[in-house]
């Protein structure tokens, strides 16, 4: 019984991590169709911002405590939101509809950001200490639930809720969906589509920054930390069906749970291969992912 609870919790927790890292991508790639290879680097920037905030607190108050982490989350969001905004204006805006070009360009950006991180923070990995309230775990019977994992699950639920409200209940969300679904029509209705593009892309980047805050607690932070997650992010979005929030949630959970289940009986390397195999086979039958959006746009490939 304890084993089952443990495995379920681990699966849920890994699924949440994948969901958190993929949430931003489900907006930039899923909704906007930009193959953003620099997504992982936004995660890295978020993680480094957490580290930066911790160092500031250590310098000012002598210890990092708990508060730094609470402040680091909006801080990381704002920094990556801003960088995403600039990147959209300078680069992405010129490459809409040119998928291959934007893939290569964002890959270049990703290399530049990695090198920049190495120049600023050094090649040695840095360590973000868990804030006091996330140290250790709660013990219920024979199982221990790490506070950190519970926090990530809570955080991803909150992000999901905010994104859902923003997309479906706010007027900006309506503008956003309108622009992404039928650009000329939205423009005719008086929507400033350039502004919508910019904010949407920045929002996706900001979510990656928030994911970075959580990733920072799981391991060391170095310039390549985003690379560990980029493949899983794309897999999650593709599996779930491009452009669909619910699809991304279910995609992340499938990947998370199946990784943990296979790894419980097999080695980590084999688990990876099997998860990949599951996805490939799945996409054979549903090439557009779990939840394909049916649209009436004529210019879809």
């Amino acid at each position, binding site marked *: 019984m304890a084993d089952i609870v443990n495995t379920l919790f681990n699966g849920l927790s890994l699924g949440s991590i994948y969901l958190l890292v993929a949430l931003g991508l489900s907006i930039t790639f899923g909704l906007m169709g930009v193959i953003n290879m620099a997504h992982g680097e936004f995660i890295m920037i978020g993680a480094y911002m957490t580290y930066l905030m911790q160092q500031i607190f250590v310098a000012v108050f002598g210890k990092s405590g708990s508060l730094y982490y609470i402040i680091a989350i909006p801080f990381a969001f704002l920094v990556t939101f801003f960088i995403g905004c600039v990147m959209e204006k300078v680069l992405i805006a010129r490459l809409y509809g040119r998928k291959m070009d934007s893939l290569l360009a964002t890959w270049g950006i990703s290399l530049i950001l990695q090198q920049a991180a190495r120049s600023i923070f050094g090649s040695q990995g840095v360590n973000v200490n868990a804030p006091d309230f996330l140290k250790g*775990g709660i013990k219920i019977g024979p199982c221990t639930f790490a506070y950190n994992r519970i926090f990530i699950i809570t955080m991803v639920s909150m992000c999901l809720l905010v994104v859902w409200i923003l997309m479906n209940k706010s007027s900006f969300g309506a503008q956003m969906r309108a622009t992404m679904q039928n650009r000329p029509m939205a423009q005719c209705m008086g929507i400033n589509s350039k502004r919508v593009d910019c904010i949407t892309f920045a929002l996706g980047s900001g979510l990656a920054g928030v994911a970075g805050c959580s990733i920072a607690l799981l391991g*060391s932070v170095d310039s390549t930390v985003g690379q560990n997650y980029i493949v899983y992010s794309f897999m999650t979005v593709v599996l779930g069906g491009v452009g669909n929030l619910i699809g991304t949630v279910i995609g992340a959970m499938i990947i998370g749970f199946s990784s*943990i289940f296979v*790894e419980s009986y097999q080695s980590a390397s084999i688990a990876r291969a099997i998860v990949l195999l599951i996805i490939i086979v799945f996409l054979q039958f549903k090439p557009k992912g779990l939840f394909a959006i049916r649209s009436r746009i004529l210019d879809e490939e």
Partner: protein
Amino acid sequence: MRKEIMRKTTAVILAVTMIFSLAGCGSKSSKDKTVEVGLLHSMTGAMAISEQAVLDAEKLAIKEINEDGGVLGCQVEYQEEDGASDPATFATKAEKLVDQDGISTVFGCWTSSSRKAVKSIFEDYDALLFYPVQYEGMESSSNIVYTGAAPNQQIVPAIEYLIEQGYTKFFLLGSDYVFPRTANMIITAQVEAAGLEVVGEEYADMDQTDFSAIISKIEEAKPDIIINTLNGTGNVSFFKQMSEKNYTCDDYMTMSFSIAEEEVATIGADLLKGHMVSWNYYQTTDTEKNKDFVAAYKAEYGEDRVTSDPAEAAYDAVYLWKAACEEAGSFEVDDVLAAIDKGGISFDAPEGTVTIDGDNQHLVKPVRIGQVADDGLIYEIFSTDPVDPDPYLESYDWAVKAGIKPLE
């Protein structure tokens, strides 16, 4: 006609430079005679984190030697090449150093895969490589001097120590590449020969970040000691996620073979406190020579830097090369190798006196088991007299019986 002249001039220039480069030290005026060596490490990529310290230690040794009058009256100059954490790049750069630049002695490499990639180049061009990192053994090239520990100078004594301490259930955890797999093959043979039990063996991907499934398996197997050969960032994730579950060294003791002072600084002393490691040298090693080495290293690279076993082994490598050249009275690889093979080339190193074994070109060195303390340093809890290197473990009955072979 013009082309002809050009070609002739080029040929003459080439010939002249070749003669000069062959002559090496002593070609210029006696005041500034020089000899050039190569330093081949990853300055970029995943391994740059670790190899920087080794590179720094080699440069420090060269600087000290030069201030002290050089080798055979020649000032040592070095040429750095970046292996970029990629075995293929290591091979290209090694060939460039020994062939194109005419440098015969190179200090370099960290990972076993990079060493294996350059091995044949050093053998083909009859050049000399000093390799400064502990490794899995099962190799003995006549063109490589191994200044880190062979398995019987790190792994085997550590397991012997654990068995003596009464640990009975071993869990083997490592990254998925050649060193952990070979190390675990050796450990399994040794543990089973002692009549004890290996209760689990798990490998994590090099870039794995989630260890929850592996930790569940550890909980299920209930070992009393975890033998950890994870490397790089895997260690940080693993120890962080163990502490998420409130586990300390009282619940699960670990013995690590890839965590030195540098890694402790990254992972954090609070997570590693009380855990054991096995090396030949620690920053806290109590010798006169080490006090000077630590002071010099910190003076050169900053107070916050720490010295570690690989850095110390790299430092020794440069001095051992100096001793071998002086014994041979020459910089020629064949002469130097002949001097080494006679045996007895030694250096009074920070870890104690180390001697190159003439037969297998590994070092005779002491083994130390250490424990991580609050201050992020590692303190010795057990040590041995200098141990003779035995890269193929031929002097251990259990290893011979188990038929341990190199994994290629």
